[in-house]
């Protein structure tokens, strides 16, 4: 079955720094997304990662805070910039694999900002 790998799986970061999360899929995908899951909360869509162009952000999320890249079909990065404790969350990459009508999720990257 299709596999999504994220790294880091977890990290502890200092306030004001930035961290980049990588997402690699093992086969062809048509769409890739980034979600945020704040502590004890549900998942919220941050953006759709578009190959070779700017990501499409949801209301409440901006490129300056969450720059996203997708240089090819199977790889994407999410950067959490100028972090504050409120950014402590699990960030999940998801993808729609070719021929599938469902989204597959990575295991997530748990960020703690001190």
């Amino acid at each position, binding site marked *: 079955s299709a596999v999504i790998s994220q790294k880091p799986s977890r990290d502890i970061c200092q306030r004001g720094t930035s961290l980049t999360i990588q997402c690699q899929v093992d086969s062809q995908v048509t769409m890739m997304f980034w979600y945020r899951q704040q502590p004890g909360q*549900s*998942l919220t869509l941050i953006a*759709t990662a578009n190959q070779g162009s700017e990501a499409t952000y949801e209301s409440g999320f901006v490129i300056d805070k969450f720059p996203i890249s997708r240089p090819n079909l199977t790889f994407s990065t999410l950067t959490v910039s100028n972090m504050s404790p409120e950014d402590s969350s699990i960030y999940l990459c998801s993808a*729609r694999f070719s021929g599938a*009508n469902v989204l597959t999720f990575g295991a997530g990257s748990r960020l703690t900002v001190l």
Partner: protein
Amino acid sequence: AQSVTQPDIHITVSEGASLELRCNYSYGATPYLFWYVQSPGQGLQLLLKYFSGDTLVQGIKGFEAEFKRSQSSFNLRKPSVHWSDAAEYFCAVGELDSSYKLIFGSGTRLLVRP
């Protein structure tokens, strides 16, 4: 606006007992509905989905769900719970157009008593 409500934050059942997790949705057209499970430290795993047709859908791990349009519900059931079913369960409604976005409920945490 689309929304998903999971009215139960926590549910505790005894091992071997039956389970029903509630999910209500608000959606303007025929919804595409999903149940995902998130075990501690894991990503989201798809349990089952409803797109159309038979309103009772079978999923993995012995789970099933029934779509009831008149009640705007998509409740998840299992006849006999195993200790390994303890996890967080998320109901989601999605669009299968070009955007492929999912809106998640707030989740229900299932605890299983020995």
